[in-house]
């Protein structure tokens, strides 16, 4: 594989992201506000509960889980659905399809630049702040390595889901509606709004068998595990790998089938 052409796209994306420096500041302000709200909300929840551990999670665990879930969300949100949808409406997609590179890859790699920037400018600072605020609740060891692997798999699953949803735009003309549905479903069922540990038992079992929990719940559980048994880590990563492959195949096939019926008005 010729990596150079992909890395050029990454570089272009980084430069583009740097054009909008102010937006990083605003995103950071938003994240800090969110952090404050989540902190106090769960603090009073735990104070009212009267016990330190609820559903196997301490206050610090919950805080880290939710804040990092948001940080991961910001980091992984690539607006793929919007991009595909708009390109279909404007007809620009024709030009992209003519490029000597698979559209799926082109889109991913043009975004990889903002990935890199988002990682350093929003995810890493959030991570460090949370690690400092909760003094040492995040175990620093081999789990960080697992966490990175897990996040990479999560990015892949998330992208495939986005791509499938984006492909639906070929049929519907609706972007906002499709995107909001996806976002709501993914955020709720992945445990990003309320940790999956708090779900009622039946719902929890159901959710654990869906691909969405592999996006946020899996990496965060791996990160927070104090003494992870190797087999449980392997099982989590294996599940992620499974979903990552399944979703990738579905998204590729769905795109291929859908492309036959594409209608572009001008462009």
């Amino acid at each position, binding site marked *: 594989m010729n990596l150079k052409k992909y890395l050029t796209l990454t570089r272009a994306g980084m430069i583009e992201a740097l054009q*909008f420096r*102010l*937006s990083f500041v*605003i*995103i950071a*302000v*938003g994240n800090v*506000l*969110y952090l*404050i*709200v989540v902190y*106090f*909300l769960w*603090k*009073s*929840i735990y*104070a*009212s*509960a009267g016990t330190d551990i*609820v*559903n196997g999670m301490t206050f610090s665990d919950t805080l880290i889980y939710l804040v990092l879930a948001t940080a991961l969300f910001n980091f992984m949100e690539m607006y793929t659905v919007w991009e595909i949808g708009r390109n279909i409406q404007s007809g620009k997609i024709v030009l992209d399809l003519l490029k000597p590179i698979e559209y799926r890859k082109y889109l991913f790699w043009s975004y990889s630049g903002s990935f890199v920037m988002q990682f350093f400018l929003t995810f890493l600072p959030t991570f460090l702040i949370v690690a400092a605020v909760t003094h040492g609740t995040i175990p620093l060891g081999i789990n960080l390595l697992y966490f990175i692997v897990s996040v990479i798999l999560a990015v892949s699953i998330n992208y495939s889901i986005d791509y499938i949803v984006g492909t639906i735009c070929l049929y*519907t*003309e*609706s972007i*906002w*509606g*499709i*995107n*909001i*549905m996806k976002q*709501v*479903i993914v*955020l*709720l069922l992945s445990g990003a*709004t*309320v940790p999956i540990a*708090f*779900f*009622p038992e039946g*719902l929890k079992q159901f959710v654990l068998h869906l691909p969405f929990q592999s996006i946020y719940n899996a990496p965060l559980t791996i990160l927070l595990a104090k003494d992870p048994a190797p087999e449980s880590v392997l099982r989590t990563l294996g599940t992620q790998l499974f979903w990552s492959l399944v979703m990738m195949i579905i998204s590729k096939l769905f795109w291929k089938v859908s492309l036959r019926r594409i209608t572009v008005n001008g462009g």
Partner: protein
Amino acid sequence: MKKKNLRFYIRIYFKILAQDLKSKMSYRADFIISTIGMILTNVSGFIGFWILFRNFPSINGWSYHEMLFLYGFSLVALTPVQCFFDNNWNLRGNVYSGDFIKYCFRPINLFFYYQSEVFDIKGLGQLAFGLGTLIYAWIKLGLAVTPLMLLKTLVFLLTASLIMIAMQNAAAAACFWIENSFYVLDLAMRFKEYAKYPVTIFSPVFRFIFTFIFPIAFIAYYPSLVILRPDEVPVLSWLSPVIGIVFFYVSYKIWMRGATRYSGTGS
């Protein structure tokens, strides 16, 4: 030129509204999907809320039904901003592309004309959902149904709406000064998520911040106290209608100042 009275504006609003609905109806699939998306958003918000309260009977002295009241109250209060001021979301695009200049040449109030162009029917789904929640909580809490109570509810719902509208106007107007102001608007919209929690969960410093700097507490908390806890209504609750009107006026001025400053793109 004759001063245009309220009747004139109401008549013209319905004329513009009819055009908007006609154009929406030509994208029926989009309309249906967006409506489902909106309902899903509310349902999922509610599920998150429900999961949380399954685990904890009360938060900071607020019972489940009181929290539900706050939740429903904030949903209903957010309906006007969703229905009548949704065109704010397109402001940045219009300013950026130069299309905004067309609004500047109309012989009626610029702000009025711009906002009246879009009526978001999806908001009505939210209204129904919010009203349902509010009425349910009202019955469960055993609140009295007297004309005075209903009048109070109406006044304070309007107050809360005005504050949210004001925040959105001001955030949208940021696009007249800053490029890529999407994140400002996005941030303002995230506030409404936090509005459904009682401000007493925060420490004094943040209580101050969320009351006076980012006035999130005025969207649901202060206004609803008048109905929920009539024995301990703080001065700020009684003042909130005035604050709402002042905020709205200030945001209107900011918006108009930005709009009159606008010089088009030359296209």
